[in-house]
């Protein structure tokens, strides 16, 4: 089917064109072109912007701003993004990582969205052409969103304070059974002083494990210390069922993998 692609040099012009019905933004195209190849006729036109700011990575004073068109491969090889490189490398195989953008990952339905899981744990801010918002609000409202995402911003974690785990059946690049990201700080006595945990595949989009977070505050990262958090890990989840795993299976293995992430 014919698809009209419109390319604009500014985000503003691209955003205006995106208001037309049947029009979608083209990031790396790994999901949207695939949908078109599969015969999805809800997409009749594609819009993209070549604005250079969309492809920029800026790091200043411990704060990172990553443009929406930046690819997973660019993040994985960036010398100052080592702490989160693992999450970018978890997305697809090498060719997919050369194409898959940050912007697209924020929209990817489960079992995809591994990098968005990391951004959720980092408490990122999502910038759109209409303004900025916390990633939680963005994810909750993304289905109705008609604004181009321009960048994500977050405080760069210390490598030892950020943990990421993707569980897949096919190694090294299979689709997620689940993914977990945790941004975690410990006090002088090594008890947990702050923590944000995000889960992938435990709902239709990345979600926080708030029960587990609450249970971890003030506890020590050992078998006994994390027991309550593991018991609470599944609170509020409604895992997806797909050819990779059933909802039941995902729910059963979540505490096991969260335990490994926290003790590892």
């Amino acid at each position, binding site marked *: 089917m*014919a698809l009209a692609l419109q390319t604009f040099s500014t985000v503003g012009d691209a955003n205006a064109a995106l208001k037309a019905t049947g029009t979608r933004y083209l990031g790396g195209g790994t999901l949207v*072109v695939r949908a078109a190849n599969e015969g999805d006729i809800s997409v009749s036109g594609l819009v993209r912007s070549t604005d250079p700011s969309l492809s920029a990575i800026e790091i200043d004073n411990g704060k990172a701003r990553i443009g929406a068109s930046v690819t997973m491969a660019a993040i994985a090889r960036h010398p100052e993004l080592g702490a989160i490189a693992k999450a970018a490398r978890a997305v*697809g195989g090498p060719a997919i990582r050369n*194409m898959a953008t940050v912007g697209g990952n924020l929209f990817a339905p489960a079992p995809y969205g591994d990098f968005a899981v990391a951004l959720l744990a980092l408490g990122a801010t999502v910038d759109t052409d209409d303004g900025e918002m916390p990633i939680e609000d963005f994810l909750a409202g993304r289905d109705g969103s008609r604004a181009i995402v321009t960048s994500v911003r977050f405080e760069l974690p210390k490598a030892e304070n950020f943990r990421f785990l993707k569980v897949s059946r096919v190694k*090294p*690049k299979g689709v997620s059974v689940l993914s977990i990201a945790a941004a975690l700080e410990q006090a002088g006595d090594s008890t947990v002083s702050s923590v944000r945990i995000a889960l992938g595949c435990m709902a239709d989009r990345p979600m926080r494990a708030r029960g587990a977070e609450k249970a971890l505050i003030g506890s020590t990262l050992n078998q006994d210390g994390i027991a309550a958090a593991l018991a609470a890990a599944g609170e509020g989840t409604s895992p997806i069922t797909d050819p990779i795993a059933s909802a039941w299976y995902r729910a059963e293995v979540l505490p096991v993998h969260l335990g490994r992430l926290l003790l590892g």
Partner: protein
Amino acid sequence: MAKVPVQFTLNGSEKAEFVEGGTTLLHALRDKIGDTSPKGGCHQGTCGACSVIIDGELRLSCLTLAETCGGADIRTTSGLAEAGVLHPLQRAFLDAFATQCGFCTPGMIMAAKVLLDHTPNPSREDVVEALSGNICRCTGYEPIIQAVLTAARANSQNAA
């Protein structure tokens, strides 16, 4: 719908085509330009048979719109042999029986080529990672991994 002009270099020679909006690079290469080395296995990004090198990076031509390739440098397996002499990767694939039905081979070779361009002496792990987006239904992968390692050794011997 109006056709869109696209111009790029394919294996070093200039190509210009008119394509319909939404035409994938895979379709343009195979059915318009006549380079059938990239294969269409799944059209979903899953099999890697359509892998090509665009501006030095491995990409999936089935998920790339031809229109977005204006001015790009595109490399496919059909451009590897020089004056009838196979590229070391092609030679190694043949010698190692790393190609059986051959459907995955051009994609595997492109994935291996970018690896060796950046990492001339890869470890086995590097090879497995580099080929992780490419599916082979015939060989069981081991001969392919061996072929890439052999080609890397042949390259570094030539360079020495």
